């Protein structure tokens, strides 16, 4: 194996133009900038409605240097399936040179993927289209004003899981989107995080080299939705990994590889206290979240066959 990638190994060429209307410190903006670096130029991007779509394509500007297709909210995976199938047919009929590599990537937010888009996603994964689906997960419907989604974590405040006498933020747990993808027996799934860009670049590149349906789940801190100062995006993204709230890993043909091992974890409190959306949490609720994380870490370690994520340091 060659040496690990560093940020200097990433292409200097920008494929995601600045000047978009995303918020200062937007995690998704960092993700898009570096995802596009890893995509071949002949890649068609199919984008669901969401923050990234709205803020990157305001007339007369666009941030996208790839061919780019905006589709409705629930159907990025279905639209991408159509594009991919059409390319296949065009090649078969000799309209496209057989050697011409045209790739398809679908991008959606957590709402457009975990909730309303899951039917289309399941269809795409099941039919086996050669598509990389990337979900940028900011853990709520941020574009419409911070309503909870199936990706909102336990305890988080949103406008539809308010904090008051009756409710105390979200009381359900986040859906396991990787588990859902794996249930379709896909060849490659991975998680990426904007604080670990060489890892992200390597995973997107690898996904593009694999035939068949792939899913990448991207951690996407959101300044207005998570209630923190814009300067803290990377701090929070890093802290998510250091506390085990987020684990960077990939599963290729059933084999799990944790790409960011954490020998000693920090308590989840360190992650939660950076964000206003968790400010109401009681010690008991924080302990519950710690328990959820401990369970997930134990599960990942079991799959890895060794302790890649360590215990919480005292």
């Amino acid at each position: 194996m060659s040496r690990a990638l560093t940020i200097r190994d990433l292409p200097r060429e920008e494929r995601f133009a600045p000047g978009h209307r995303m918020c200062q410190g937007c995690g998704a903006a960092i993700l898009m900038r570096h995802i596009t670096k890893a995509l071949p130029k002949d890649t068609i991007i199919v984008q669901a409605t969401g923050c990234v779509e709205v803020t990157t394509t305001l007339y007369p500007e666009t941030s996208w240097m790839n061919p780019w297709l905006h589709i409705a909210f629930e159907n990025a995976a279905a639209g991408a399936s159509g594009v991919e199938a059409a390319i296949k047919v065009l090649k078969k009929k000799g309209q496209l040179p057989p050697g011409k590599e045209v790739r398809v990537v679908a991008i959606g937010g957590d709402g457009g993927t975990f909730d309303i888009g899951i039917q289309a996603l399941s269809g795409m994964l099941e039919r086996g289209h050669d598509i990389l689906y990337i979900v940028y997960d900011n853990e709520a419907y941020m574009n419409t004003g911070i309503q909870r989604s199936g990706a909102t974590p336990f305890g988080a405040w949103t406008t539809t899981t308010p904090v008051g006498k009756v409710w105390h933020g979200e009381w359900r747990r986040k859906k396991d989107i990787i588990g859902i993808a794996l249930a379709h027996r896909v060849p490659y799934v991975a998680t990426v995080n904007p604080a670990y860009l060489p890892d992200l670049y390597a995973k997107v590149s690898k996904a593009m080299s694999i035939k068949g349906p792939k899913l990448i789940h991207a951690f996407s801190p959101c300044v207005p939705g998570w209630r923190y100062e814009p300067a803290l995006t990377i701090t929070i993204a890093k802290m998510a990994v250091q506390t085990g709230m987020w684990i960077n890993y990939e599963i290729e043909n059933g084999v799990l590889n944790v790409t960011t091992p954490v020998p000693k974890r920090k308590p989840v409190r360190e992650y939660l206290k950076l964000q206003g959306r968790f400010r109401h949490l009681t010690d008991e609720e924080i302990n519950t979240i710690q328990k959820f994380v401990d369970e997930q870490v134990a599960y990942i370690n079991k799959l890895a066959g060794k302790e890649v994520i360590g215990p919480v340091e005292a």
Partner: protein
Amino acid sequence: MRKSFISGNIAIAEGAITAGMRFFAGYPITPASDIMEYLAERLPEIGGVVTQFEDEIASINAVVGASWAGVKSMTATSGPGFSLMLEALGLAVITETPLVVVDVMRAGPSTGVPTKTSQSDVMQVRYGAHGDYVIPVFAPWSAQEAYDLTIKAFNVAESLRTPVILLSDAVIAHLWESVLLAEPGEVEVINRKKPSSPPDEYLPYKPDNDLVPPMATFGEGYNVIVESLIHDERGFYRQDREAYRNLVKRIVNKVLSRVDSLFEVEAYYGDDYKYLLVSFGSTARSALAAARILRKSGIKASLLRLKTLSPLKLETLRKYCDEAEKIFVVENNMGKLVHDVERAAENDKVISLPLLDLEIPEPKDIVEGVRKWL
């Protein structure tokens, strides 16, 4: 009554609470989301439930379910979400399920301009689902009316056992005005009719003389069958012409026969007019200002504002149109309500003024549009 300074969206939420709504299912969509957000805080305090579903299809179907469980229920959305709800809207029609759907219109087609206003869902809300039916549609022009018409929407839904649409738009949604909110007992609240016959004699779709069957919900001791196929009075699937005609005619006529109480208009600047502006919703605010400007310059213009877009009472419209030399249908779309006005008036008198604005149309645009024809 108490006075409160609230937005149109909050007025809809408050109107629903006054009318007795205790179950809200929804999915985020601009510019309707704050109805759900407001209710997420308010409803749990008074024993109600707000559930956010995974999409609009699930939301309206949950509302159908909740209504059959005996609770007044509502969902709120905008054009794209409404499109997803159309199948279940037809289900609510044939199963005669009382419910209210709020459509806060935004510019389309498709994602359109989510944050900007429009009145282009006029056809979708009335005719979007397949099959034969008439759904009552009310269109408020102020926060107060958003409150009042939401209560009316529930009363109609409950008394006629039908889905009812409240057709608002992005301007009304975010318009803050003083609204008089009713205390319990201060406004009429109608609840669905319950069966009086013993359970073994109950036929779930046998109408009374008013064409509306009493509605037993789950858990009340009656055999309830909720059937989306064409059914007879027992609720059993029938594929013969007689049962089909009976059912479809009845669900259409139970609404049409109430057109007198359902159809409401308001006229401004009295009987003495030569030119009649016809408008509804937020655009009517500009049309009223336009009529005022025209009057000041000596042109006898009046405004007729429709509060109900379905069912329409053409005789009423005709009465107003007959007095006018020219009729201008002012709407923020490519011209939709104009087709109905053309049916009511002599065709050559009716002029369409489609504004297709993303903001509330400016009165001067309407004045200019009218002047061209004088």
